[in-house]
């Protein structure tokens, strides 16, 4: 599924929502988020950092790496790591389905894949509706979160992709948790 398809989908599904948002605060900046759901919590990443979205690709396991590194994939000759977001957040392992996707993120010079259960939609949201990450989301460390978006009663956790992959303290912490569990 391409980003454009998602955008179209968004236009079909959320015309009402979009209008509401625009009416609510027309002075703020509009942010577009690609969202996905894990265990009933909605997460979002800034669409500007999304390179593309892939169906579940062939993933090559990478030995001697933390568990949440699912492996590496070949994206047109580019070898990039895939982070199992479920594992990273300490959730129980998911099942690969037809909906399973890899969101390819551009973080600086690097490209990273995020393995998620599904990609729901692209939403537009005014940045005045984004709060700093003060609300602690269950199981997800604060370091991974750049903000919480409110949209018609929905809460969307906005992820800091770079930290999801590279924050080493978090890796250590998470591993401790998963080991004791």
């Amino acid at each position, binding site marked *: 599924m391409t980003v454009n398809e998602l955008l179209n989908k968004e236009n079909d599904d959320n015309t009402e929502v979009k209008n509401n948002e625009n009416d609510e605060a027309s002075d703020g900046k509009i942010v577009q988020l690609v969202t996905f759901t894990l265990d009933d919590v909605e997460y979002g990443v800034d669409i500007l950092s999304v390179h593309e979205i892939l169906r579940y690709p062939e993933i090559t396991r990478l030995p001697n790496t933390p568990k949440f590194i699912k492996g590496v994939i*070949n994206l047109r000759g580019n070898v990039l790591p895939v982070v199992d977001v479920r594992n990273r957040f300490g959730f129980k392992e998911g099942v690969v389905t037809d909906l399973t996707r890899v969101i390819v993120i551009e973080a600086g010079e690097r490209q990273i894949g995020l393995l998620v259960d599904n990609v729901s939609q692209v939403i537009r949201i005014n940045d005045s509706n984004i709060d700093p990450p003060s609300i602690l989301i269950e199981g997800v460390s604060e370091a991974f979160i750049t903000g919480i978006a409110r949209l018609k009663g929905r809460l969307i956790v906005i992820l800091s992709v770079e930290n999801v992959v590279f924050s080493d303290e978090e890796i250590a912490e998470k591993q401790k948790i998963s080991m004791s569990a």
Partner: protein
Amino acid sequence: MTFSLGEYQDVFLEEADDQLQELNSNLLQMEQDPDNDDIINNIFRAAHSLKSSAAFVGLNDLSDLSHKMENLLQGVRDKTMKITPEIINVLFKCFDHINGIIGKVSQGEKPDDDLSSIIAEVVRISSSASASEPVESKSSEPAAGKETKNKNIDVPKTTFESDERKHLKKAVDSGMNCYELSVFIDEDAQMKWVKAQLMLNSLKGSGEVIKTIPPENMLTDENINQCIKFVVASNETIEEVAKDCDVDLVYRIEGSQITLDKKDGKYILTYHAKEVLADYTDNHKDEKADKPEPSVPEIQQSVPQKQPDKIENEDDETDKKDISAASLRKAPTLRTVKVSVDKLDELLNNVGELVIANSGFFRLYEDLKKINADKTIINEFKNRMEQMSRIAKDLQSGIMKTRMVPIGQVFSRFNRLVRDLAKDSGKSVQLITRGEDTELDKKVVDVIGEPLMHMIRNSIDHGIELPAEREKFKKDETATVTLSAHQGGNQIYVEVSDDGKGLNADRIRKKALERNLVLPEIIANMDDSDIYEFIFHPGFSTAEKVTDVSGRGVGMNVVKEVVTEMNGSITIESEPGMGTRFIMAFPLTLAIIPAIMVKVQKETYAIPLSDVIETIKISAKDVTTIEGHEVINLRSEILSLLRLDRFVGIDADIIDDTKIPVVVVGYGNRKIGLIVDRLEGKLEIVIKPLDQNYKNIEGLAGASILGDGSISLILDISSMMTRVISEQEKLSREDRRSVLAKSSTDFETISQKPVKENIPSASTDTVRTNAGKPVISEINIPEGVLPDGKKNIFDKETTPVAKAGISNEEVDTQVKEVLRNFRNELHESVAKTLNSGDSDSHMKKDIAITDDQLRKIQILANVGIMKGAESLSSMIGRRVDLAIPEVKMMPIDSLPAKLGQIDEIYVGVYMPLEGDMRGTILFSIPEDSGFSLIDDLFAFGKGHTKEFNDDAKSSLSEVTNIVGSSVLNAFAERTGLTITPDVPTFVHDYMQSIVDSILVLHNVENDYALVMDTEFYYEDDRVMGNLLILPEAKSVKYLVEHIKE
């Protein structure tokens, strides 16, 4: 034929163009922002580089101009002059000239521009600009040293001929001033006559030149001593005139005014007091950092001076020229393009994709064939497809080649370094470079400079002796450092060697122990080549004093790191008193490497072929577990095993009743065996670093995309080995007694097969085993895939359970017993190695030969080999010396190393022995000694023979035959046995191969053999060759029994 500057033309043009661009843009900026030091420095640097590169390709005029520019800029940089529009303008003019020259060269024309006028202009401006900004109190008085220097110079006296006198009078009468100038040129200066001519031309521009000493038509280098005198009439002041003479390498200008007084109706010439108009005595020697800060001309106020208006007609002339130069100014057409390596990599990436995408068409073709469509279309499709695949592959190799650059450009940098270091350390050293055309991956060439520098520094600072010391050892007073590069197989070898005193293995040993880098019992078993490895440790230095060149122990560590980073390896060879050689080996290209593909379950891993020593198959029962490590006895060497499945964290797929594939990999001097599930064959792979998108992972060198688009991870053997070795060392450092407490089953294997003394292993693992030789079946790795067919399952628990009938206590006691024996033996062996150096006693025991018998053989060998030397000497008509023959038991493995440099080419003639004594006689000669031996035999001149033709081969065989027969005759005489040599065989190969070919003939029952070996020397102490007698074990005993007292 077009004009060319030789092989470096392209490089020069490219560089010069870059530098010119930089100069132009920076100068423009400087015009706007004259006080910005960075800009000035940039300009200065570019001018400097331009000077060097111009001189390098032989464009001396251009180099000279750049040098003058540099001088001018130096003044600006040092703030002794102000930037004036005049300076900027003249610099731009210079650039135009340079551009013109570059343009001409790039079009294949000879650059014949006359640069003298622009050079003169730059000189004039640099001196006038500095003069207008007086530097305080600089050299108001010449220092005493300068005076003494001048004393030695023969300053010619000025005398005038009558016509010159008339000329002088006329000039004075017309109101001009008359000066006598003495110009002192550095005595080392090249082409003094050019400089003199330059001065003369400038002087003619500012006035009339009445006289020159030496005369104008005799201004040749032979005639010009350090001083040139000019008598000039001019309207300008003496300082202005003196500036005309202020060219490169003039270190002092003196001048005095001459007046014409009328006295008693006669004209009398009066020389006024001499003034120093310029003096660079302090720095005139220092060519490179030439800092012409012209001293303030000392003006004696008492001398009446006219201040004529400046006449600058010369300037107008050059202006005109420059306009035409500027109109010609255009970017030179270059035949090279600079491309960033990143762009190339990207291209390579895409081409790789193209190759992979193309493989999709093959599938499509197969499908099409099945559909049974129109045959002509299918065939057309196939043709196109194959064409495309070929093009893609050509593209791939083409791009790969663009990354290769010759190493010569790196080598050439070191001439200067060697010269400077040698000078500083008071040693005489010459640098020889070989194989400059050898091409290496650009990445390697970019980084290899630093390691080379460190090695060269080390060689000169530590390796090479002072001349006096060298003389004592009868070595050539001038030491040699050699830089060489060559290609061998898919590796590029870069070597740095010196003929200095070699590494001191004992001192390194001592230091390694002091620094606790290794346990004493381990170091005792390490041979010298292992010992040398210690110098790569960070902070390791045996230097007693730290010099500013080396001794801190940083350099060699850097070397190792850089080499490792470039997937290379480094080895050291050193011979005490003879010199040291560092050999670096790099893969041909870093972008694509051949690799062996292996499988663990369904995962494919690639092992770079450069790290692979061999692939073998072993059976599970040959694996012995010692202290938790699995090892096998591979040709009497302990080989640690590492299960790749465990390393990558999955379970393997092998059954224990099949042969287990093991890839023996080596890094540095260490080896391990990697147990894999299956071997999949050899493949060329493109390395994609993992840190591009993620980070580096221990044990992995990167990833590679295979033909079907799947990813295979590339193993990083060096980091795997480091991990394995550090784990092993951790174990061996732990108190070995704690091993006793361990569960007995671990040692079951040992207790069943008591540990027997084995040959000392070079590995750091001191554990010995004699678990029987594993069945080794060498397999050739085919080009394609090697399917293994069956699925194998290997029981991961290799540790056998204690056999029934033996109680645990019994096993425990057995284990203790065995370990105690083992430790005792170890200590014994260590002590022996340390004390006596007689490490071969156990070998004697094996062959069942007593010391007494060995001595007898020694005597026999002495007599025999003496006879051999005699006949050799009479044959070549020169005295032949020989070393006392060594009669020794030694492991056959170490034979090649004993006889010579393993990786050097030798000539060998061997003859099997027949009769009562069986064995082989080998006469081995280093290749070049072989040539000179032929020269001697045929009485050719030295260096005549360059190859071994049939005549040469048969005569060398004959030599061996004669020498060998005399040895054997002596043996026969003393023993009464019949020993006859068989037909000699000529071999021309590496020492290892020569010895191997003998061992094939030889019936080797033991891993060691009795060797009788001596070295022959020419009368001038050069090594001629080695004579080796290798009897079969049984024959040795037989021989001994028959020796007559």
